[in-house]
């Protein structure tokens, strides 16, 4: 089991040399969050209710794959390109999903791992963002974990909110020495 987590973490880490996430200059991340305690640390943020207004935030208990995630992006009218990555037979499936976002010159690469269950998806994402450090982030829903390209916390929040990824999966972001969930979007108990 431990080997599987190490493998997934390494797979999610693959391609670390990709460009950092930069959202269009006009996007103000403050419009998407409520800051508690007069602080802008990741653990004091909460998504505003209107960010996911109209989205079904009920916990998803079905078994998902990368197609489920791609369908969500396509429903947001984003252009998507999918590359299946070669992995050892004992490792979970890994796909790179490149999303074209208006205002961002290059397609944004998202690494999508399909794991056996929700616990493993949550844990794999946690380990991946901890290893990558501050600025790394991702979402997980049921058995699927998605790791995004690291950016500033502000850009991460703005990206996850504008693309509605935070309404698809539990939005997890790395702080200085730990990871935080930004509540207000999709969540699983």
């Amino acid at each position, binding site marked *: 089991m431990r080997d599987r987590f190490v493998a997934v973490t390494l797979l999610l880490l693959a391609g670390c040399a990709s460009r950092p996430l930069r959202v269009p200059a006009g996007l103000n991340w403050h419009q998407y969050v409520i800051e508690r305690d007069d602080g802008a640390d990741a653990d004091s943020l909460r998504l505003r209710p209107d960010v996911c207004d109209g989205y079904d935030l009920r916990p998803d208990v079905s078994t998902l794959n990368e197609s489920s995630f791609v369908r969500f992006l396509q429903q947001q009218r984003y252009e998507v390109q999918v590359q299946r990555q070669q992995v050892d037979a004992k490792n979970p499936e890994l796909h790179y999903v490149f999303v074209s976002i208006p205002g961002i010159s290059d397609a944004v690469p998202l690494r999508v791992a399909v794991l056996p269950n929700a*616990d493993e998806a949550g*844990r794999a994402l*946690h380990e991946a963002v901890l290893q990558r450090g501050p600025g790394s982030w991702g979402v997980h829903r049921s058995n699927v974990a998605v790791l995004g390209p690291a950016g500033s916390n502000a850009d991460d929040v703005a990206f996850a909110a504008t693309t509605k990824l935070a309404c698809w999966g539990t939005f997890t972001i790395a702080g200085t020495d730990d990871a*935080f969930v930004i*509540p207000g979007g999709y*969540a*699983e108990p």
Partner: protein
Amino acid sequence: MRTPGALAWVLVASACHGAADPPVRQTVFDPTASGANVAPVEVGSTALALEAPFPPLDRPGTRGGPEWLGVSVLRGGVRFARPSHWMIRGASVDPGHAFIQYVSPNAYSFGIYERSDSPADLWRDVLQRYENDVAAAGAKAIGRRVPMATGTNQGRAYTVERKTPVPSHSREYLLRSDHRIVLVQVVTQDDNLSRLNAELLEVLTHLEVL
């Protein structure tokens, strides 16, 4: 055949809130809680020392469901809203070891336990101590360290499997604030919590560790 209430009581008894105490043979005629300030609870009553009303979190039920009662527990350290048909089955106000257990008619138990960890401790130390407690109690964490959050607190979620005294599964959450760390424990005999997801998410979303 056990009724849901009886089943939930067995689940409450089977959960051990991560304590590392050695197992003690007990019969159904022995109270299982211990400690100087453990209070017997009159089922269905609201003992203010154990659970005080917190009206700002009150809200009506939806689609024929029960009302939600805002309450403050663990000597004011935790506030949340619970379905009105939950019943208190056990509680203690021992400083450092306070807890409260509820039983739902939907055949699960819900408990909040004060942990002795310092709120200044690093997550990794808090998690390791908790995992040691789980192992010492003969249980197995089959899902571990999944980041989660209530509306105001950061937490880590676990799925724990117990074989004795009855097979059970629990979803357990370590939640932290600047002042305390608590364990929230949901125990059921179901294979997973999917049947309870909506209700539990509602509870957790509005739960605040102060």
